């Protein structure tokens, strides 16, 4: 497994993530087959000593929320050295529920990655009206 991880591009969260300030290095690993819309953001930094660091399920928001248009603040864009929207890869963290169809996505704090440098951060969209738990699958 570690052999596979070594070949994956490493994402670097210079400021950690809210709740996980010391976890900075992650790799993105596909979850399931090529058709799966989900990936796992797996930390390479243990949270405490020898225990494994956290991992997060992420997805491309455009697949589930086509109308989602977050405005990334200038500070985040500057910190990640984003010059245009095309430089950014946008991901959202999924909270997996039971049943899985009840899983939600965090649209308030999207993950922004500079495609070229792999610098990453979780943006905070204050006053955006987006929530941390938006249903992935609409309720009937």
């Amino acid at each position, binding site marked *: 497994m570690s052999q596979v991880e070594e070949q994956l591009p490493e994402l670097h969260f*210079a*400021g950690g*993530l*809210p*709740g*996980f300030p010391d976890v900075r290095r992650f790799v993105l690993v596909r*979850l*399931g*087959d090529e*058709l*799966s*819309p*989900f990936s*796992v953001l797996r930390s390479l930094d243990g949270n405490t000593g020898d225990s494994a660091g*956290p*991992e*997060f*399920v992420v997805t491309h928001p455009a*697949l*589930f929320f*086509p109308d989602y248009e977050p405005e990334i603040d200038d*500070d*985040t864009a*500057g*910190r990640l050295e984003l010059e245009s929207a095309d430089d950014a890869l946008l991901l959202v*963290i*999924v*909270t*997996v529920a*039971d*049943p*899985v*169809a009840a*899983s939600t996505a*965090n649209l*308030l*704090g999207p993950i922004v990655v500079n495609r070229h440098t792999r610098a990453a951060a*979780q943006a*905070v969209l*204050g006053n955006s009206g987006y929530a*941390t*738990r938006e249903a*992935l*699958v*609409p309720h*009937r």
Partner: protein
Amino acid sequence: MLVLTRRANQSIMIGADVVVTVLEVRGDQVRIGIDAPRSISVHREEVFRELEAANRAAASPASGALEGLAALRPPTERERRP
């Protein structure tokens, strides 16, 4: 907690390069301006706490749940707008 009294247009320095300025006081609302280096992120506390809680809740889901999730597909256009 350190408590300081400031008037509008007066500031507080935190370290050498963070300046917090009281811009306006009106009723029970205070407008605050913050000058900080880019490496320091500034957030409304309640929003940041909400993100912390959301990240903790989302961290490291059970591997059994992941198998089912991998089969979940985005809703089609028709499912989304019935």
